[in-house]
């Protein structure tokens, strides 16, 4: 188990598309090292041959028909267009993707 240093924290923030100010960085380094330290108690658990539980249910492969996937109130895109930050009538404006 490891500690998070400042450089690593900045890398994680970058991956998560967050900017942390110096005060946040200082607080998070302290909080995260406390939390990761607490996690060390998991080392004492023997998990050899224990299968992982990788969801809240044991259900597998739930299928539905194509075309039947849209909620009734979702079929009209009016509300979704309404929520868009920048638009011209039904055209949506997004920031440039290419630099």
């Amino acid at each position, binding site marked *: 188990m490891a500690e998070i240093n400042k450089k690593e924290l900045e890398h994680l923030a970058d991956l998560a598309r967050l900017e942390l100010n110096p005060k946040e960085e200082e607080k998070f380094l302290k909080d995260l090292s406390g939390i990761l330290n607490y996690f060390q108690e998991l080392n004492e658990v023997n998990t050899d041959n224990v299968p992982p539980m990788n969801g809240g249910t044991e259900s597998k492969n739930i299928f539905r028909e194509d075309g039947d996937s849209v*909620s009734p109130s979702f079929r009209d895109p009016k509300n979704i267009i309404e929520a868009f930050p920048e638009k011209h009538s039904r055209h949506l404006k997004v920031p440039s993707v290419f630099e």
Partner: protein
Amino acid sequence: MHLHDLTIKKFHEGLVGKQFSAAEITKAYFDRIAEKDLEINAYLTVAKDNAFLEAEKADIAVAKGEEVGWLAGVPLAIKDNILIEGLPATSGSKILENYKAAYDATVIAKLKSAKAVFLGKTNLDEFAMGSSTENSGFKKTKNPHDLERVPGGSSGGSAAAVAGHMALGALGSDTGGSVRQPASFCGVVGLKPTYGAVSRFGVAAMASSLDQIGPLARTVEDAAILFKGIAGQDRFDATSVAAEYGEELLSPSLEKIKTMTIGLPEEYFISGLDPAVAKAMDEVITTLTSLGVKFKKISLPNTKHALSCYYIIMPAEVSSNLARFDGIRYGHVSAVNRREHTLAALYKKNRSEGFGAEAKRRIILGTFVLSSGYYDAYYAKAQKVRTLIKQDFTNAFRDVDVILTPVSPTPAFKFGEKTDDPLAMYLSDIFTIPVNLAGVPAISIPAKVETGKLPIGFQLIGKHWREADMLAVGQYYEKAIGRTV
């Protein structure tokens, strides 16, 4: 009819008996909110226009002599991470401050077809991340029993609305205790259904393998009525299951309860319990024993690992679920000039300005435990420990029908008491978290405490899909102590 005396059941009888209309009671709740919520701050949005239209629908149905269900006209409060079309749905976050829901959550669609009334949207910890509602991006909700104390969280607004007689019932969401712990702190009933019993379509996802929507209510029977109204399979949530929930939810048999055995796990009755909580648990055990229920000491040996397991799995899922909030399609948009920044830089601006500290902390922690090099040590390990925690419950339920525990180690704590130390805050959910990891149902019910003392809840945990067992025990407990509202 005074609001303080109402339950969903009494409301229904009064409505169909034409003692009052849904519109009259709805108005009484808005009057109460206008007066009381100035100090409590349970609501983020009140929805008067919509609510009166909904009440009118119920009143017209009754006037026409149509048969209406238990929930017709019932004024409800809805946690603000659950979507009601056209109303704000902030999830307690600045990043969604101006967002209006584009569609109805499945639970809302179900309640609408039952002709329920939605009074408004309630405060919560940002994206349901917290145990005190202090992490809300907007305001602090106060505990109606003591204004210097937190209502619990994250469904603190919903619990305070019901406790403060500002709604007849409410919906919350429970990922690690977010319905049960505030119910305990505010002295109301809170139910976390079996994972898969209720559709999560239209709830802002926090940790998808743990989240469930659940009701808060004044009595166990009311919680059962609300649960029955929202349960069921939904094609828009692939984890939802077509479970059979029959009349036994509402009409339990005392004869059956007398044959039940309730387990008392030694890991939950620890020396660190607040003396008031320990005393309340003793009283509950004495009352249930007098009803003929048998008790048995059991062990859930991996309980002590649940907190670590949860605080690895939950942030991992949070980091993934909260990635969608980028300010491009909806939500907070930074005032910086779009042309002067790359797309990645814009994401960072929108997200960093929009998310609060706890959301950022969990996103970072989740990103860390999922990153290559640490994945096996943390995330993969936690998934295996989760299997062991679930097995503990499976083993225990071979010998007992229901498990009884405290909901939280303490009654409601004071504002600011735990805000600087995330671990101290996380520990207040130590008795509720294992339930979500295992996917089993559980309910928080107020224990009988002396007048003037802070409320304390006890938790009943059931087998998968056996909400009926704990609801039955809970309903008989309330009868035994003579609680009617």
